[in-house]
């Protein structure tokens, strides 16, 4: 019996290389090396502005990380949506804004409530209760629930950041018709065009995963973003080299990837 599965050896080597780079840079971050990012995310920078706007208008902020399950394919996207929502909750607590969060997966509820509770405690407001609302799973009922909440509560800001599916166009269009300021975020390639079309500010693709590290400001976490850039350079080099070699009739890299 072979120790390694056929067809997964190259995957494993690439996995080790990519994670090795992340681990080395994370270790450097822990050891005290400073990582400065050259640019920030416009979508994250817009959060204080959005919360401030809602506070001035005396209306709430509606946030949803999407209607997918926490342990499904888009689980990591939902988790990042919840991380960013914690940041929004902190700004709301600081500026006096009211945050309404709509969820569709029941397993997200205790997690979300705990995140907002710790955010309010961090801002010295332990008495504020998080306003987390649960809607039926499924894009149509969840989308309709979010639109209904935004309409009845007259939300001034709508943030849909995380793992939305086809509930995204419903919620985003509903928010547009209510005149809400929108920040959208998605790593789902099918939803990215809709995010760009609908929202004033966006957090798309890998930016969603960089957001958690950026918000923390911790060098050990920022190292992961820098490492991802190095890994991307490596992949681009591999693609270019592979294309050139295959064109020249040398399928070495292609054969390696099939290992």
């Amino acid at each position, binding site marked *: 019996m072979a120790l390694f599965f056929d067809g997964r050896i190259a995957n494993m080597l690439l996995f080790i290389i*990519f994670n090795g780079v992340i681990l080395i840079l994370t270790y450097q971050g822990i050891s005290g090396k400073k990582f400065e990012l050259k640019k920030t995310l416009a979508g994250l920078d817009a959060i204080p502005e959005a919360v401030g706007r809602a506070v001035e208008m005396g209306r709430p902020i509606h946030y949803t990380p999407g209607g997918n399950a926490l342990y499904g394919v888009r689980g990591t996207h939902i988790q990042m949506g919840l991380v960013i929502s914690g940041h929004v909750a902190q700004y709301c607590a600081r500026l006096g804004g009211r945050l309404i969060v709509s969820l569709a997966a029941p397993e997200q509820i205790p997690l979300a409530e705990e995140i907002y509770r710790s955010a309010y405690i961090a801002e010295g407001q332990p008495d504020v209760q998080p306003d987390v609302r649960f809607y039926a799973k499924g894009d149509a009922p969840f989308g309709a629930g979010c639109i209904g909440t935004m309409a009845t509560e007259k939300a001034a800001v709508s943030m849909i950041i995380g793992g939305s599916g086809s509930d995204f166009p419903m919620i985003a269009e509903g928010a547009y018709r209510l005149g809400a300021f929108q920040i959208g975020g998605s790593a789902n390639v099918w939803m990215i065009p809709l995010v760009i079309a609908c929202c004033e500010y966006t957090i798309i693709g890998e930016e969603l995963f960089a957001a958690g590290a950026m918000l923390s400001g911790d060098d050990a976490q920022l190292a992961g973003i820098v490492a991802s850039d190095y890994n991307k350079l490596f992949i681009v080099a591999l693609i270019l080299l592979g294309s050139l070699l295959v064109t020249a009739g040398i399928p070495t890299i292609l054969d390696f990837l099939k290992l």
Partner: protein
Amino acid sequence: MSNFAQREIPVIIVLVTGLLMIVPFFINIPILADVSAEVRRLIVPIAAFALVLGGVDVSIRHINKVRRKSSGYQFSFVLLGTYIFFLIVTSMPGLVDIYTTAYITVIGRVNETVFSLIALFMASMAYRAFKMRTIETLLFGSSCLLVLIANAPIGEVLWPGSVGIRDWIMSVLNMAGMRAVGIGVALGIFAYGIRTMLGYERIALGEVVIRRKSRE
């Protein structure tokens, strides 16, 4: 509870579970594969617990709303009625037919009706997105228009060449963009996974990550 139990044990659990998912994918060790499959099966009871929690949360919220007669309490009343109705018909084996009929004829139809709104919403979004103010939106709008023409049955009849252009846009430009985003997302998930397994990302424990910025 000691700091170790509160902070370190969850991180150790995450690390061990993470490794249990990764290692059997690459290395052929049957016992590890069995343990990994067993851990994945644990999701079902955990999700069931969460489902009960969600159900209780919804009930409490809407019972309070009806009791206080707050705005829109009539809808809460309908929700609670539906909730109890489905709880009864799904708990009793003899009432499965009622459940199926109620689900298909009421919820299924309502679901389809609401979902069909997406067509209108997409058209409205497309109208906004196609406003050509910059070179990028011009390119975006032109490529969308070409794909739209080729996808419409009449488009192919009027201009047969549109199908070739659409296929090229979808399989070259679109695919390249999607793969680039996909690779970026995959690398982002790698970094996020490492952060979680090392205990830097503590979302699973409900902890907010903002430390430095909150004190600015």
